[in-house]
C-alpha cells in the first residue's frame, strides 16, 4: 500500500458493497437485459408500440406521478401538523403514518377497494353526491398510490421541518413579513428539497406498485391496466421475452425520471444556497 487510509476497513467495506450490489441489483438486472436480447429490435419495438402496452404505461406513470404530487402536498401538511402543533393522540397518529409501510400491500388493496367501490362506505357517498366513481378506474389507482406514497413524503419532510430554525420565521416577522410571506419566502424554500425527495420516493414506489393497486384498479385493458399487471399477464402466457422487454423499458424510464428528479433537486438546492 503506497499510503494508509485514515478510515480503516476500506477493503472489506468496498468488497462487501460490490458483492452486495452485484448479487442483489446488477446480476438480476443483467439477466433481464440478456433475456430481452433474445428479441430482435423489430420484435422489441412491436411489443412496445402495442396499443395496450402503451396505454398501460400511460396509466402507470400518469397515476404514479399525480399520486406522488398529491402525496407531496398532503404529506407536507401532515408533517407540518406533526412537527408544529400539539394535539391529543399525536403519537398514535404519528405511528399510523407508517402503516402503509408495514401492511401487506394486498391487504391494503382489498381494504381500499372495499371502501371506495361504488357500493362501499366512501365510494357510495362520493357516487351519490358527485356521480364520480373511484374504484375500478384510473382514479382508484391514484387513490391507492397516494395511500402508499404518503409515508415516504411525511418521513422525509418531518426531520427537516423539525430542524428548521424558527428564529428565521421570527426574523422574517420582525422585518415586516406577513405569515404568508414568511411561509412562501422563508419556510418553503428550506423545506422544498426534502419534499422533492419524498415525492421522488413516492413516485418510484408508485410506478412499481402491484399489490395495493390491482384490487382497486379494475384492470381493464386500455383504461385501468398497470404495467406490472401486464408483465404478470405476459408471464402467465409464457411470453418471457415480452415480459422482460416491458420490464426493461420500465426500468429505463424510471431511471431517467429519477435522474430528472435528482437534477431538479440539485437545481433547487443550488438556488437555495445549500450547495
Amino acid at each position, binding site marked *: 500500500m503506497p499510503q494508509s487510509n485514515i478510515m480503516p476497513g476500506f477493503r472489506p467495506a468496498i468488497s462487501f458493497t460490490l458483492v452486495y450490489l452485484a448479487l442483489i441489483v446488477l446480476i438480476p438486472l443483467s439477466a433481464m437485459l440478456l433475456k430481452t436480447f433474445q428479441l430482435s429490435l423489430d420484435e422489441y419495438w412491436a411489443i412496445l408500440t402495442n396499443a395496450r402496452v402503451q396505454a398501460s404505461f400511460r396509466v402507470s406513470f400518469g397515476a404514479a406521478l399525480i399520486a406522488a404530487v398529491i402525496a407531496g402536498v398532503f404529506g407536507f401538511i401532515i408533517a407540518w401538523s406533526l412537527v408544529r402543533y400539539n394535539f391529543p393522540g399525536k403519537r398514535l397518529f404519528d405511528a399510523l403514518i407508517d402503516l402503509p409501510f408495514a401492511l401487506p400491500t394486498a391487504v391494503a388493496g382489498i381494504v381500499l377497494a372495499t371502501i371506495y367501490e361504488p357500493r362501499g362506505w366512501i365510494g357510495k357517498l362520493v357516487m351519490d353526491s358527485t356521480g364520480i366513481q373511484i374504484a375500478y378506474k384510473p382514479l382508484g389507482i391514484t387513490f391507492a398510490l397516494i395511500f402508499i406514497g404518503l409515508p415516504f413524503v411525511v418521513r422525509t419532510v418531518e426531520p427537516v421541518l423539525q430542524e428548521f430554525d424558527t428564529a428565521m420565521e*421570527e426574523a422574517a416577522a420582525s*422585518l*415586516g413579513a406577513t405569515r404568508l410571506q414568511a411561509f412562501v*419566502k422563508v419556510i418553503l424554500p*428550506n423545506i422544498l428539497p426534502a419534499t422533492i425527495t419524498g415525492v421522488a420516493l413516492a413516485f418510484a414506489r408508485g410506478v412499481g406498485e402491484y399489490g395495493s393497486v390491482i384490487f382497486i384498479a379494475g384492470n381493464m385493458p386500455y383504461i385501468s391496466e398497470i404495467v406490472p399487471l401486464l408483465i404478470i399477464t405476459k408471464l402467465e402466457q409464457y411470453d418471457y421475452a415480452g415480459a422482460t422487454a416491458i420490464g426493461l423499458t420500465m426500468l429505463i424510464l424510471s431511471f431517467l425520471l429519477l435522474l430528472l428528479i435528482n437534477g431538479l433537486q440539485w437545481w433547487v438546492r443550488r438556488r437555495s444556497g445549500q450547495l
Partner: protein
Amino acid sequence: MSISVNNISKHFGAFTALDNISLDIPEGELVALLGPSGCGKTTLLRIIAGLEQADQGDVFLKGDKVTDQPVKNRQIGFVFQHYALFRHMTVFENVAFGLRVKPRRERLGEAIIRKKVHDLLSLVQLDWLHDRYPDQLSGGQRQRIALARALAVEPSVLLLDEPFGALDASVRKDLRQWLRNLHHDLNVTSIFVTHDQEEAMEVASQVVVLNHGRIEQQGAPGDIYDHPANAFVSRFIGQTNVFDLDEHDADWLQTVGLSMAQQKGKIAHVRPHDIVIEKSTHHSDAYVTLKDWQHLGSLIRIELVKSGVNGQAASVYAEMSNDQFRRLHLNRGDKVDLRIRHAHWFH
C-alpha cells in the same frame, strides 16, 4: 422616552421569568440588559420586540402603546443570538428582505432597493460578500449581516439578543468597539442583552442589571461600578473580595485600616484595586502571604492568602499596575502588609 415598559410580568408554568418590571429608556441610548443566565433578560427583550407576550403589563415604543401589536407592526430591528440569516438567500437578498416584503404601495423601486442594500453592506464593511450565502461566512461576518438586515427597515429601536455570544474572543472585542461607533453614528435607540459584565460596561451608555426577573440596578456603567446598589450587583460587576463580619473578620479589617465607624452592614465588599500591599517590614498580626499572581495586561492580579482566626486560610485578591508591582520586588511566599482603602457595606 423611546422605549417604556410598565409592570411587565411573565411566567413560564411555575417559573417567574419577569416580576413586575418597569423600565424607561430615553431616545438614543445604547442600553445593556445584564444578568446571569435565566434572569429573564432575553424574555424582556423578546417582549419588547413582540416575539413573546407578557402575562401582564404594557410596552410603549416612542410613546405609542404596542402591547397588542404583532412584531411586524412594531418597527423594530431584531438581531438574533444565532443571527437567523435566511440560509437560502444571498447576503444581498437577506438585507433586501425587509424592503421586498413591504406592501406594494410602500415598496421602493428595484434601483433604490439595490442602492440602499449596497449602502448598508458598505456600512457594515461587507459589500464584497454580497453574492455569498450565509453558510459561507464567518461568525463575525454573519453578525454584521444580521445587523445590516435589521437596519434595512429603518427601525425606530434596535434590539440585539446576545450579539457577541457566539463569537470568539478577539472578534468579539473588535465588534464591541464597532457596535459602539455604529450606534454613535446612527443614534438609534438600542438594547442589547448580555451576561458578560465587561461587555456591558464597555459598550453600553446605560446598564440595567437583572436578577431573578427583577431589576437590581439601572445606571451609567461607572455609577454601577462605583456605587453598587446591593451585594448582588457588587459581586456581579467586576471582581470583589467579600468579608463577612460574622466570621471574625471585624478585628482583622480594623487592623488593615478599615474604620468600623463607617460600617453600614455586616458584609464588606472590597474591590481588588482598593487593596494596597507592601513588603512586610515588621512582624505585625496583619500580614498575609503572597501566593501567586497573574498578568492581566496592564494590571497584575495578586492572590494573597490570609490565615483566619481558627487556622482556615482565605484568598484575597488585589490588583495593581505592572510598574508598581515590579518596584515591590515580591516573590511567591513573601509576607506582605495590606491596607484597604475603601469598602462597600451590605447587609
